[in-house]
């Protein structure tokens, strides 16, 4: 029973590098989300998707991109990493009338 799986768990990037955070869910959920959580702070929504082929910006989308080519996958792309993007990233999925299920998080450090 995998649920929501994020990879990698940890990553260190140099300023200007790019990377993709992977997220996949096996619950056939329509809704998927990417959040970031800065130390001692709450969740901030980066992007979300209501279904395959549909994505929209959340509260803090700058510096990120997403795609949703399948129901299962919702990768988050950082094109030019900056120190301000050092954070813990959480992917989540949900369906209509269900709670959200979260991945275990990706701890990203940009140096």
């Amino acid at each position: 029973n995998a649920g929501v799986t994020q990879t990698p768990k940890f990553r260190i990037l140099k300023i200007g590098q790019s990377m993709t955070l992977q997220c996949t869910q096996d619950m056939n959920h329509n809704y998927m989300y990417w959040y970031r959580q800065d130390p001692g702070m709450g969740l901030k929504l980066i992007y979300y998707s209501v279904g395959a082929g549909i994505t929209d910006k959340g509260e803090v989308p700058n510096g990120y991109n997403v795609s949703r080519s399948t129901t299962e996958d919702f990768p988050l792309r950082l094109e030019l990493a900056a120190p301000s993007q050092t954070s813990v990233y959480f992917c989540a999925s949900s369906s209509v009338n269900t709670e959200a299920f979260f991945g275990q998080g990706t701890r990203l450090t940009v140096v």
Partner: protein
Amino acid sequence: AQRVTQPEKLLSVFKGAPVELKCNYSYSGSPELFWYVQYSRQRLQLLLRHISRESIKGFTADLNKGETSFHLKKPFAQEEDSAMYYCALLGYGGSQGNLIFGKGTKLSVKP
């Protein structure tokens, strides 16, 4: 507008004391509300949802439509309750997909 407000960023109590984490919401219609918990370095997980009216780990939350509140309560706090707590609202459409989180309250239970 659909919104969830958690007015306290940090709540500190002593072991055995009652605890109340506040959550207010803004939503037209009948809301579905949840409390999520995040223990140190773990993924967010559902604590309880108002439609189930259950008590989990001694916590309860009652929906008060008149006050548009969904406060989380526990009569006797334990050290293992120390965690980050998020109130969430199941909305429809809007800028945050279908799940709207508050900013979170960090509960610290001191011995």
